Structure formats: structure tokens, C-alpha cells
């Protein structure tokens, strides 16, 4: 609390500032007078797109010190004109949710609890399992001897919040590996 100054005492300001009833100028605090929107305090604003439905509303993502501080509609967007639905408006919570999990979790076969696992180890284990499953369920030909050159040991199901670039890499990698069981939300 700032040091008390008699002249800044609102009762005095009531008499001084023409706000005798103490409704406005006489009673403001320094904190109030310093109010600024946190969008102004952001050190970076990214143009983004809402991750929920397919309308594709523009979002402005404000961040400060590497943390998202505010997400709101992008008024420049011809699609959404700066407006967002409740989900779009809540997407800051999607980023900063306290329920979000940000470390690798591992459940071993027949395990009863989650365990921690190093990301590097996890990725390597996944690559090994990928190749093993690919091998185990490889189908070179069908029953008529026609070439299939594919594996049925691996399947993938993707959401529809996966970027085009990500889908492209996924399709490219899985197809090259012969993994044909690839699906996404579009069919669900």
C-alpha cells in the first residue's frame, strides 16, 4: 500500500476535485488509474486460427514471456470478423489448462499405474515397436498371389485438428511403410 498522503486522501479530493459525492474522480486508486488491457502488455501477437470447428475463425494469440495471455477474435478475418463462439473464446484455457499433461506417461503391459518415461526413450521404443508390428503383419501378396506389399499390424486414427502439413507427413510415412489402416475424424 502506498504511503498515505493527506492531499491524496479521497475525502480531501472530494472537496478539491468537484466530485463532492465521491462517485468518480475523487475515489480512484492509483491501481485503477494505471489500468491497461493485457493485450497491450503482450510482447507478441500471433495470427492464428481457431482449432475447434471448420468455420476457421481468425484468432489473435497474445503472449508475454513465452506464455499465452489472451486469445481473442481477429477482426481482420473475412470469415469471422473478430467473433468467436464459446469454444473459441475459451481456447486460452486449452493452452493454459491446469489439467493439461505435458510430460510423457507410460503404462507398461499389465501395469496398474502410469509411470514416467523419458521422451527420447519413448520415441525410440515406439520406433522399434512400429518396425516390429510392421514386420509381424506384413502382407506381400494376397491369396491370389497379387502384390499387396503392406502391413496390417499398425493402424492410426487422427483427429481433424492435425495440420495439413502434419497429415501430409503422416500419410507419406505410413504409406511408405505400407501401413494402410489410416483414418481420421473425417469419417467419424
Amino acid at each position, binding site marked *: 500500500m502506498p504511503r498515505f498522503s493527506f492531499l491524496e486522501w479521497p475525502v480531501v479530493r*472530494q472537496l478539491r476535485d468537484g466530485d463532492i459525492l465521491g462517485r468518480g474522480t475523487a475515489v480512484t486508486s492509483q491501481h485503477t488509474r494505471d489500468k491497461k488491457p493485457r493485450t497491450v502488455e503482450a510482447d507478441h501477437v500471433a495470427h492464428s486460427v481457431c482449432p475447434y470447428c471448420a468455420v476457421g475463425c481468425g484468432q489473435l494469440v497474445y503472449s508475454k514471456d513465452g506464455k499465452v495471455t489472451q486469445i481473442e477474435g481477429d477482426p481482420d478475418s473475412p470469415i469471422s470478423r473478430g467473433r468467436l463462439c464459446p469454444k473459441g473464446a475459451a481456447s486460452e484455457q486449452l493452452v493454459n489448462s491446469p489439467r493439461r499433461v505435458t510430460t510423457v506417461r507410460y503404462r507398461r503391459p499389465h501395469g496398474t499405474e502410469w509411470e514416467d518415461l523419458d521422451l527420447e526413450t519413448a520415441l525410440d521404443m515406439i520406433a522399434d515397436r512400429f518396425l516390429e508390428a510392421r514386420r509381424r503383419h506384413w502382407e506381400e501378396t494376397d491369396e491370389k498371389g497379387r502384390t499387396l506389399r503392406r502391413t496390417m499390424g499398425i493402424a492410426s486414427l487422427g483427429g481433424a485438428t492435425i495440420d495439413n502439413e502434419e497429415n501430409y507427413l503422416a500419410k507419406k510415412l505410413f504409406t511408405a511403410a505400407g501401413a494402410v489402416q489410416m483414418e481420421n475424424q473425417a469419417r467419424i
Partner: protein
Amino acid sequence: MTHSSYDEYRQPEPEGGRRKRGGGGKRRRRSPLDGGAGGDGSHEMAMVEDVEFESYYGRPVVKAPPWETPIGIYLFVGGLAGASGLLQAGAALSGNAELRRTARLVAIGAVGVGTPALVIDLGRPERFLHMMRVFKVSSPMSLGTWILSSYATGAGMTAANEVDRMTGERLPLGPLRPLLRLAEGPSAALQGVMGAPLAAYTAVLLGDTAVPTWNAARHGLPYVFVSSASLAAGGMAMALTSRRNAGPARLLAAAGVVGDIVGMHYTKSRMHPLESEPLEEGTPGKLLTWAERLAVAGGIGTLFARRSRTIAVASGLALAGASALTRFGVLHAGHESVKDPRRVMIPQKDRLEKRRAAGITGDSITTGW
């Protein structure tokens, strides 16, 4: 509404039923007996006539201030202090030292209980001093703060003098003692001047809200509150003062009883039945009924208190109890009145209709243009 044997898996139900039920549509209330069927079902509903009524799922329209038991205590002790302030001033002027001392000690005791009660009830008690930031005539609470603090200053000084004298000047005051004595007169005057405002402002505080029962009581509540303060202070003084010196206290108490009962009836007479109903029914109604009974009993007691100290003490305590019950009754009646939106909606619609019938059509918040 248990339908299946698996309903026990339901989450624990909050008081008053799990789901606030109630249609948004039309409701007709037919008799006092079907109370409890509507609204959120959590309280009795008492009845006026068969009245057509719209609300939003029976939810409250206005909110009552979050004033709980400490505020009830404060309303009581504030009044007690206020009237005691007058008593001590009168006693000082009339040279009734015993009555003066009693009144001053009661006053400082009341202030000593009331001020912490006020602070405790704040959402942020550590910011109690923010009350002194402004002086707002539009705010009874602001005025009350200044009244209370002035009063408390005076009461503190007068009580210090009394205590000093009672302890045979053994308080380690040193050179301050003459100053204390010097301030006694002005302090007693301050305490006396602030006494009546302290007793009355809380009535304005309650009246100056949108809480239907309080707001509608604004025409008479100050009378009730000053009377209640008087009977409480008179009663306490009567109980704590020797019969010989308690005369003015008895008279003040008796006057208070009369004022209290008349005032309450007058107050109710100016209210819409739906607004006054909480003062008569339910828990607050019971409190107020007992308040009135105690007041009457105490009032009768005052007539005989000169004869017996026992009667004096009993009726004094009865009066104090009556005052406390009155305050809690009024406080809770206000809280009760916001629970049922009818108490807000129907009196408002009625007064709007009345104005329209009188040709005043330009002051409605709802307009067709």
C-alpha cells in the same frame, strides 16, 4: 423422486433439493398451503391472493447483502450503544453518576462488541480502514462509519474516565489524566450527539437497499430502530443500575416499548402484503413475534421495576432480548424476502399499474418505443 434402485448413486443433494426446479412459465398460487411447491422449494411460501406470476425459473431477482449473524449483533449493540449514549449524556447533565457510569460502560461494551462484529463480516477485514477513505452522504454505510467512529471516540474517552474513577485513579495515566478529565465533557457531548444517529442510521442502511422487505419498511423502520435501541439501552441500564437511579432508564425503556410496537405496526401498514409477509411468517416472523412478546413483557416489567431489583433485571434482560430479536428478525426477513421473486415482481408490477392508472405512463423501464 426415486425411480430406480440405482438412484442412490446420485451425488449428495444440496439442501433444498438437487435441482432448482420450477417452470419458467406461468404459475398460479392458490393457497398458503401449497407453499414450498414452487421456487426452489427451500422455504415456505406464504400467500397472498390467487395471483398470476411470471419469473425466471423462480430464481431470485435481487440479492440481499451478505450480512450474517455479526451484522445482526451489530444492529443490536449499535442501537444499544446509541441510546446508551443519550442516557449517559442525560445522566451527566442531570448528575446521575451511577446511571451515567452504567450507560457509559454499556456503551463501550456495545461498541467493543459491535465494531469487531462489523469487521468480521467484511469480505476483506484487513481493509477495514478503507471505510475512512471517503465521506459519502449518499451512503448510509459511509455516514454510519463516521458516526460510529466519532461515537466510539467519545465513548472511549468517557468510559476511560469512568474506569479510571472506578479503579480509584489507579490507571497509569500520569500527566494524561488531567487531559482525560478535560476531554470528558466534550466527549460526553460527542457521544450524546452521535447516539441518536448511531441508533437510527442502520434503519436507513437497510431501507436504502433493493431488498423488498427492507426497502418497503423504509417509511417506518427508523422509528422501530430508535425505539428498539431505546428499550434495549433503557432495559440494560435499568438492570445494571440501582433502582433509585434507574428512573430515566425505565421511562426510556417504556417509551421504547411503545414506540417499537407502534412503529412496527406503522411500518407494516405501509408495505405491500408480499413485502411485509416475511416479517410475520417463517423464522423471522417467529423472531419478531417473540420480540414483541418480550418487549411487552419487559415494558410491563418496567412499571414494576422500581419495586424490585429482580424484576428490573428480568425485564431489562427481556427488553435487551426483545431488541436483539427485533434486529435479527428484520435482518432475516430481508434475506427471506429476496428468495422468492414474487416479493420483488408483484409489488413492482402493482405499483407500476397504480401509476399507470393514475395517468403516469412515462416512467416505466419497459417501453414500447
